[in-house]
């Protein structure tokens, strides 16, 4: 490093530049937060001089973030929830009341049906007649504030795009595009995962174009994840095939 700009020191153009070797040397420790202060500043100096490397650093950083998911799972005590909500001044408000109030503010009296219409319209799965469009437009803005969970596809469903959209009060809708068509005698089955134990949450068939929108049966409030498998017609009490779509809640 010289002339005030990292990465342009003497000899830097021959072969692998010394600054780049130093950058590589520090990169892993940087994204792990394991550099001391002076090295961190040094690394960020290289990064400031070579912003094209930011994406590489971000990508390695996203790998680091995965380590947060690796520990064995434990549940915190119920007291922690009470203490936490109490400390923000709403400890006495029951969850069901809070959710009901939240839903009423978001969706009004239309409930699940109206919300589902908005979901379907948002993902462009169906064309709606003009009388519905106004309602959809009204709901569009509020629906965009709902929490969504992107579905990850694998195997034959690798190219599927989809989301689980929370509607409040434990209700949710699964929407997906580009689903592989089912063979005769097969159906997609949705599962709610509770501590790695699947519970059936509904069956569905995609439309001809591979689009689907289906309410999730059961409450997602206590579920850890949503998954989708391919099952024999009529569904199965427990999954019999690999998971095609999944998302963590």
């Amino acid at each position, binding site marked *: 490093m010289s002339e005030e700009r990292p990465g342009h020191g003497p000899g830097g153009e021959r072969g692998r530049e010394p600054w780049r070797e130093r950058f590589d040397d520090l990169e892993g420790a940087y994204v792990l937060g394991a550099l001391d202060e002076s090295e961190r500043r040094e690394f960020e100096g290289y990064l400031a001089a070579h912003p094209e490397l930011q994406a590489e650093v971000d990508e390695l950083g996203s790998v680091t973030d995965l380590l947060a998911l690796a520990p*064995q*799972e434990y*549940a915190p005590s119920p007291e922690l929830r009470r203490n936490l909500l109490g400390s923000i001044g709403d400890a006495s408000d029951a969850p069901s009341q809070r959710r009901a109030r939240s839903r009423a503010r978001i969706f009004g009296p239309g409930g699940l049906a109206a919300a589902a219409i908005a979901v379907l319209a948002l993902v462009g799965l169906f064309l709606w007649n003009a009388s519905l469009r106004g309602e959809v437009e009204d709901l569009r803005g509020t629906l965009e504030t709902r929490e969504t969970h992107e579905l990850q596809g694998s195997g034959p469903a690798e190219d599927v795009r989809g989301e689980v959209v929370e509607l409040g009060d434990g209700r949710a809708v699964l929407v997906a595009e580009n689903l592989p068509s089912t063979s005769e005698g097969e159906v997609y089955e949705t599962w709610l995962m509770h*501590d*790695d134990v699947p519970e059936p949450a509904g069956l569905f068939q995609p439309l001809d174009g591979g689009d689907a929108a289906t309410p999730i049966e059961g409450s997602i409030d206590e579920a850890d994840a949503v998954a989708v498998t391919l099952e024999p017609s009529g569904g199965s009490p427990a999954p019999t095939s690999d998971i095609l779509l999944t998302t963590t809640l």
Partner: protein
Amino acid sequence: MSLVGDSDAGAFAGLYDRHSRASYSLAYRMMGERQAAEDLVQEAFLEVWRAAGSYRAERGSVRTWILSIVRNRGIDQLRTMASRRRVHDRVEATASVAQPSEAFAETWRNSQREQVREALRVLPPEQLKVLELAYYSGYTHAEIADLLDLPLGTVKGRMRLGLQKVREHFASSGREVPG
């Protein structure tokens, strides 16, 4: 998240219900005891409550954001502790990371958590150990070199190679790194 940013306590409760388990699991892994882990989770969620308005979806998922707060606050606490645990204890603890799925393994193996564990299982133990000491215990690379009696360059190399190997594992299996 926008509702939490607007100080909607109900939305915050929902956010807590969805992410408290993962947050507590990470906190417990870092702090090693229940009370300290719960204190850390409470502190982290209070920061989530205060800072929800600053969350930007384009920078990553809500879960990643919350877990990064848990981790950063945990590291701050570990680094300011007057006495750290003996490294022997910490290194021993690293063996617990790669847990096999206990139930429903065959069909649930594609879950994100299992994907991550699977990716970590491909790492040589010496690389995994270095990553864990840095990530969960907050040691700098120089401290790890001292604790494990390794050259500094070796520690840095293991950090980078370990992370690259996890990334390559996802790439080779045709998956994206879960966000």
